[in-house]
């Protein structure tokens, strides 16, 4: 594993980084993180375990093991990615490996929601566009890519493709309100008002 990556925080307007592809439809969460790794008191060690069984089967040739993909943060997948069990361990494992954005033809609903709550956008595009992006990456994957959230576009060094991000999640990401904590922390002023008026925190004064 690389050094402790910094996890998504605050408003997310763009993801900049190396991209790689993982081809195949209907990749389920059991494959992303096999059930035996769910027995843990924290999500910390999941990064190494992402796609554990697929990887051991491919003996070092899995995209998540290739040296060239080390440090990449954008993953381009195909259709119905993340289907199956609702485990939050799946996006956690991807995030802890280093993934910060996913682009694909479609994503399973629960997986999509779990990703959003971690601050990881899942952008979608037609099968044709996805294929074009994947080809472009595979032809030369040393370049850096940028996913711009509000513009709904992904840029390579020389080209750009339109992608779709649902309006609600887009706003949540762009404003930084994609998880409960940041929602709750954004009302500091109102919180103080309540705190300063609670009798039991203010010597039972009458207000």
């Amino acid at each position, binding site marked *: 594993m690389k050094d402790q990556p910094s*996890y998504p925080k605050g408003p997310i307007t763009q993801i900049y980084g190396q991209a790689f592809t993982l081809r195949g439809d209907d990749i389920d969460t059991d494959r992303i993180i096999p059930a035996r790794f769910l027995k843990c008191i924290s999500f910390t060690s999941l990064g190494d375990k992402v796609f554990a069984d697929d990887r051991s089967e491919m003996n070092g040739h899995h995209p998540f093991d290739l040296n060239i993909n080390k440090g990449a943060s954008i993953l381009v997948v195909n259709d119905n990615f993340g289907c199956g069990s609702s485990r939050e361990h799946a996006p956690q494992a991807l995030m802890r490996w280093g993934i910060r954005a996913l682009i694909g033809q479609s994503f399973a609903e629960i997986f999509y929601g779990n990703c959003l709550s971690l601050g990881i956008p899942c952008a979608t595009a037609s099968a044709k566009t996805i294929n074009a992006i994947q080809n472009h990456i595979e032809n030369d994957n040393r370049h850096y890519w940028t996913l711009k959230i509000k513009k709904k576009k992904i840029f390579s060094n020389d080209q750009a493709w339109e992608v779709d991000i649902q309006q609600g999640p887009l706003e949540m990401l762009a404003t930084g309100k994609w998880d409960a904590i940041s*929602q709750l922390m954004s*009302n500091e002023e109102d919180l103080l*008002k309540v705190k300063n008026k*609670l009798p*039991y925190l203010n010597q*039972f004064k*009458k207000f």
Partner: protein
Amino acid sequence: MWDLHRIAELPGGSTQLFVGLHLIHEVTSPQAFFALKEKGLRVRCPEQTVATVDHIVPTTSQDRPFADPLAEEMLCTLEENCEIHNIKFYGLKSGNQGIVHVIAPELGLTQPGMTVVCGDSHTSTHGAFGAIAFGIGTSQVRDVLASQSLTMNKLKVRRIWVNNTLKKGVYAKDLILHIIHTLGVKAGVGYAYEFAGPAIASLSMEERMTICNMAIEAGARCGYINPDEVTFKYLENRLHAPKERNWTQAISWWKTISSDEKAIFDDEVDFDASKIPPTVTWGITPGQGIGIDEKLPDPESLSPSEKTIAQEAYNYMGLTPGGTILDLPIDVCFIGSCTNGRLNDLKIAASIAKGRHVAKGIKAFVVPGSENVAKAAEDEGLVEIFKNAGFEWRKPGCSMCLAMNPDRLEGRQISASSSNRNFKGRQGSATGRTLLMSPAMVTAAAITGRVTDVRTLQ
């Protein structure tokens, strides 16, 4: 009270609620603190947060390091987190350690009109003081640590009015087991249960806590009882209770928060306390209770959903429909837990144990709910009574309520237990069997070695 704590209305219709008291313990807090660390956040209001250790502590020797390295690691993590974040921690041998739902009331931390949360479902206990109190999950523990608030949907209120008073030999535990049996274990979903009426008013604070503690077993996230003179008297002079001028002012505020006589409830149910017998569970959910004189139910007479679980329970428990629970031989007797591990519970148990002896072959042990309970029991001579009667006297903790420590059933042993859950395997053996009952009934069972009507011993 809800409005007083409301910070904002959130999209989707939930409310952001301010948390007045956040209790934490070693089991559900480590992942939450870890999440804070990862996000680079601090604890928003350390002074509103109090920690103790209860679930994993051994009750024989509490010398460190614990024999179980995982338990030791959990305690170390909690100690470290409290240290880093400046959180008051009532640790072992501090004099104030104990089960979180026992110590917070006893130290005067829980007060009327507060919002109280803890990563533990039995937080409903604290509602006995006229507080809004409920259990939360680990991700909410994280949210509360970071923001001193959480998102919550407003609950409906079912008022449970209990007339008359409990008969001799019948206790708060019997009353709540009877209520859960009558209403069912899912009836409370979406509700807070407000307990009221002459029978509730006549209960002590400790008995009221027993009632609210098990509101969760009825499916209700909160239990609630209006604060009154009994509440105030209990709180007076406790460690964290308001003092002097604040005390008088506190009382005048607390008096204003009682729900009004004419309040309208979403639902109302009545019970007659005088008709309730000592009640014991025979199955694998807290709703499977019967009066000590009753016959075990015929599954065919039950509703379809109850029927399936009743059949499962008969298979698991090895009991037969139409039989009695009375005289069923038992193996282990456990007095303790956040339901019935308080001083009053031990006093009642000791009054029955006094001058008698635990039956041959029965393992009986008493686990006080806190270090303060232990000390008071010692001072009042209860410990001696228990020891003379052949009970083991242990150190405070959750113990065999959920068996995360070395106290556990073996094989198919049957326990008479003063705790709150009789789920399959709850007491540490995958095939172990649990009968829930009052501490008085547990003591009676220990003396005779069988399920016994405590009224015949009194």
